[in-house]
């Protein structure tokens, strides 16, 4: 069944888009990520312009992260104080990102920067996750505990001033790395049209040593607020949010996410991280492939302005 999208200006098959929403929702529920890095390329692939895809995916992610936030809130598994600290810098990062986005777009190099950033980020993060989870897997095989507990293992991050206590997460860290992480997530999210959950979770674990109990819930609060405000920002600045597309995506997304969460809970953490690592790495390779292989058509068109 075809439905015409009022902002994207083209008809799409409603069941195809719903199916994409369910599939990405399943993955996002399973791994506790927004799934923007999968959804945006998929939408571009079915012919929706990148700008509309990025803007509409933002509202889709806010829906799925809100349903996640409610679930984690009930379990008291989120750290609001930490999320607010990250957010205060995240907003600045978003503004900086939107500014660079506009600049690069005017210079015709946006595709390249997005492509290169995706390749670098995804292969690096994916590779690190695979490496880390394979080592954990091997340790379990040898009968050792899966995760090495290093109590009191302080890295350079813990030597910074402006220390703050986050009660729910039971951590005592400097505000500087928290702001730094918040800023970079906001910045990357605005340029690449992703919530940044798959980056934020490992950053919080490795740099701030946020316990696994609160990390996903906290990351989801941040994703929710940045993506909801990104929706409004995109709607105000370039009028490219397609509400019809977003609604189909979010309905599929929240249904898929519920099944994803159930599947994810039945799996061990290391196995889950390995799978996510492989997925992230594969998407990164796909982007690398697109940059290196000669394109079918060397020419491309982009609208600069209408009458």
């Amino acid at each position, binding site marked *: 069944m075809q439905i015409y999208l*009022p902002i994207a200006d083209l008809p799409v098959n409603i069941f195809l888009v719903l199916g994409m929403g369910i599939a990405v929702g399943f993955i996002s529920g399973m791994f506790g990520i927004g799934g923007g890095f999968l959804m945006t390329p998929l939408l571009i692939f079915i012919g929706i312009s990148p700008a509309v895809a990025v803007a509409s995916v933002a509202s889709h992610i806010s829906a799925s992260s809100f349903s996640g936030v409610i679930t984690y809130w009930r379990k008291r598994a989120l750290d609001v104080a930490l999320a607010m600290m990250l957010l205060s810098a995240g907003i600045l990062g978003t503004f900086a990102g939107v500014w660079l986005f506009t600049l690069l777009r005017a210079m015709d190099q946006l595709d390249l920067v997005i492509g290169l950033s995706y390749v670098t980020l995804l292969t690096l993060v994916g590779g690190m996750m695979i490496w880390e989870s394979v080592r954990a897997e091997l340790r379990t095989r040898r009968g050792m505990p899966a995760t090495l507990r290093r109590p009191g293992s302080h890295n350079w991050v813990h030597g910074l001033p402006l220390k703050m206590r986050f009660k729910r997460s039971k951590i005592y860290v400097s505000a500087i790395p928290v702001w730094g992480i918040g800023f970079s997530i906001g910045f990357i999210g605005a340029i690449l049209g992703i919530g940044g959950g798959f980056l934020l979770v490992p950053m919080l674990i490795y740099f701030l040593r946020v316990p696994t109990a609160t990390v996903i819930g906290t990351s989801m609060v941040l994703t929710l607020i940045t993506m909801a405000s990104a929706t409004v920002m995109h709607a*105000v600045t370039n009028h490219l949010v397609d509400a019809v597309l977003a609604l189909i995506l*979010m309905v599929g997304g929240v249904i898929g996410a519920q099944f994803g969460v159930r599947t994810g809970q039945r799996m061990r953490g290391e196995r889950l991280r390995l799978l996510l690592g492989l997925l992230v790495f594969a998407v990164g390779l796909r982007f690398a492939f697109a940059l*290196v292989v000669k394109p079918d058509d060397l*020419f*491309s*068109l982009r*609208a600069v302005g209408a009458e």
Partner: protein
Amino acid sequence: MMRRLALTLLLLTAGVSAADAERLVVSLSNHRVAVTSSFVGEELVLFGTIEPDQPRAALRPSYDLVVTVRGPRQTLRTRRKERVLGIWVNVDSREFVRVPSYLAILSNRPVEAIGTPDVRRRLQVGLDNYLLPQRIGPDTADTVPDDPFRAAFLRLETQYGLYRQSATSVTFLTPTVFRTAIPLPSNVPTGNYPIDVKLFAGGEMIARTSSALEVRKAGFEQYVADAARDHGLLYGLATSLMALLTGWLASIVFRRD
């Protein structure tokens, strides 16, 4: 002096009556195309007849007809990729200034057979002769038809179904009655579409008329598009609220504890 004026007048009236020996009457099946949520493209039909201007005037044995449908103008950039350090990068681009967002040149015969190259260029008959100004420094100018950027531009627009040139679209039902189908693909831009109908005989244009159609969003589609354009903040807030509602509903429906 007087004689020269009279001569000019005579020539002028002669010219006018010669050019007006035939008259074109055209009618469109539908002047307004509504883009609704079930829109998947549409085909309009343009009918027309060739009539003698005066009852006594004789009609010619054969005519050629060229129908040009042009969409609202827009400015586009054509970019070319090249391999730099192993990856493919946009290295060069040209801006096509205020070119049609949709362009259909429909005729009953290949345009090469209809008029002399000079006539075709002057009247912009055929995609190769259509004026596509590029920004060159502070100026804009059209280039030769085989300019690589121009060729790529036409090729891409044709691939998207937005530009087309067809030598079989116009059908003469009788020697003086014709019809042509104007295909509007699903990605057709909204706006006004002037239609230019040119009648040729013996390689020269002998009559010309115009019509127009309008493509616009209707109903729900129009409502959403207007809201997004005119009330960006409200629209964004509403979309975000819709997202929160969907997420909240999902957490209630699927609640297990």
